[in-house]
């Protein structure tokens, strides 16, 4: 038979997906950027030249030093090495992004699955709540929440999570609406499978490509959002190194100490760009597979 059902096929689709991912050099560049940044962030204490510059104390002898061989990206007003602080800033950004997405994604996915499958009043109530969150500009909503709460790392993540889950609810709602019409859902219903089984064992696996792609794209955007909040002084407080607050602090010394703003800003650009390129590549790879 000319059936394409050979056992090597599963691995062939996987390598087909990999081929689709690597077909675009930009996705490969994105992957390299992401892997490099994550590695730097994980091993920050070992790869940074001045790990003790993370705290409030620096080297006053080297205040406002321009980029040089000793200080690659220069130093700030109290003589802390900017390169070290950027790498630690990455660390914080990545942790924030992971925590925010780890909370926002399950909430949004469950809301979307339930609303999309149940329909009727459940759908109406859940999706209108979602719409209310979506109607407010995200940064404004996060700022409002931060206005009530103390500006700490924890609250910053809380504020971003609160504005992030509705996007997942919308996405998964639409996927679920389409999947619920498929025969395999009907087949599960005919044998009396529980709603939980249908939602999590039948429909959810078909949502994974959408979820993974969106999460990868979102890591960059969460980092951007966190940086925006801390740029406005509503996020992480000094002396914790944070890319957004570094840009804000450095802006006061433009254009003389340009490195104080430019390098952290470029650092944000690089990580957001990296995750976006990976997200685009993943989307193409998933499309090639299905």
């Amino acid at each position, binding site marked *: 038979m000319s059936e*394409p059902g050979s056992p090597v096929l*599963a691995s062939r689709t996987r390598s087909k997906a990999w081929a689709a991912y690597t077909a675009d050099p930009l996705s490969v560049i994105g992957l390299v950027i992401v892997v490099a940044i994550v590695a730097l962030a994980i091993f920050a204490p070992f790869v940074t030249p001045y790990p003790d510059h993370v705290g409030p104390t620096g080297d006053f002898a080297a205040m406002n030093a321009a980029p040089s061989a000793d200080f690659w990206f220069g130093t700030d007003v109290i003589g802390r090495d900017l390169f070290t602080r950027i790498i630690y800033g990455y660390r914080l950004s990545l942790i924030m992004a992971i925590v925010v997405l780890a909370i926002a994604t399950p909430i949004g996915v469950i809301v979307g699955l339930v609303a999309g499958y149940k329909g*009727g009043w459940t759908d109406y109530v859940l999706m209108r709540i979602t719409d209310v969150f979506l109607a407010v500009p995200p940064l404004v909503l996060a700022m409002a929440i931060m206005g009530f709460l103390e500006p700490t790392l924890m609250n910053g993540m809380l504020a971003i999570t609160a504005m992030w889950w509705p996007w997942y609810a919308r996405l998964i709602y639409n996927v679920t609406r389409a999947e619920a019409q498929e*025969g*395999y859902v009907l*087949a599960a*219903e005919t044998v*009396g499978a529980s709603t939980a089984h249908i939602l999590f064992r039948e429909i959810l*696996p*078909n949502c994974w490509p959408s979820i993974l792609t969106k999460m990868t794209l979102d890591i960059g955007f969460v980092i951007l959002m966190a940086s925006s909040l801390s740029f406005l002084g509503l996020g992480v407080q000094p002396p914790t190194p944070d890319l957004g607050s570094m840009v804000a602090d450095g802006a006061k010394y433009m254009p003389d100490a340009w490195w104080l703003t430019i390098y952290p800003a470029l650092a944000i650009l690089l990580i957001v760009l990296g995750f976006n390129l990976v997200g685009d590549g993943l989307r193409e790879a998933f499309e090639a597979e299905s």
Partner: protein
Amino acid sequence: MNNALQKPVLTIRDLRLAFGDRRHQTPVLHGISLHIQPGEKVALVGESGSGKSVTARLAMGLLQDSKRTHVSGSIWFDGIDAAKGGPEIARRRGNRVAMIFQDPTSALNPTFKIRGQFRDVLRSGDRSISKDEADRRAEAALAEVSIPDPKRALDSYAFQLSGGMNQRVMIAMSLANRPQLLIADEPGTALDVTVQAQTLNLMHELTEKTGTSVLLISHNLGVVREFADRVYVIYRGRIVEHGTTAQLFNDPRHPYTRALLAAIPKISGGGLPDLPERSPEFENPLITHEGCGEPAEALS
């Protein structure tokens, strides 16, 4: 007839269904009655929108829990009346009723290999079945539906197999737990004609072997003639004629049935007769052929 002494597998009595809210209801079924004896193959034939698929879904217990459906009458299966029930009905019956759908490829979840889905099916029939035992039974079941390399098929995803292969996988899965009743809703309409014929033959053989009753929903009279023992013709939510396959095809008595049969293209050519789309004659009352009445006694 000794048939009448046996207790039917499925008995539908005066089933009425309407869609809509309390104020505006659109009646869809106007009192359908049918029954299926153990091991019998019964066809429900009608044009699109005549209510045949809706009847099948009600029999599966799939429509009842929606607020916009209003059901009266009774659907007896296995000592349970499914007319009122919702998902509990489906759960209590479990795999004693199985269903085969129009599009076999969409009826398999694309994110799992056939192996895992087959295991789930077997596990729903026997909680304690081991993985090896399930795989062994799955392979045997696939071999029975003449899939050449069962191991290979088990390790594939549905989208890697052809439509005909998927249809056979579906048949194997639906009969794996030896259901009493198999409801086939236009099986293989999404497939091409030769493959459809092959799978129908397979289904015929297997259900014969297992003694499973079949309710075949179809608009294809050729398929029905080959497959069914007894036929109900449904038109606009009413059964208009009921008889054995031989009686019905040799001696169609209801104007609508005659029109349906006349609408089959003849291989000798001559074109299609000019049939009215609707005719008051089509609404004539039910004609039941000799020896085909509904079982009379109360069922519960």
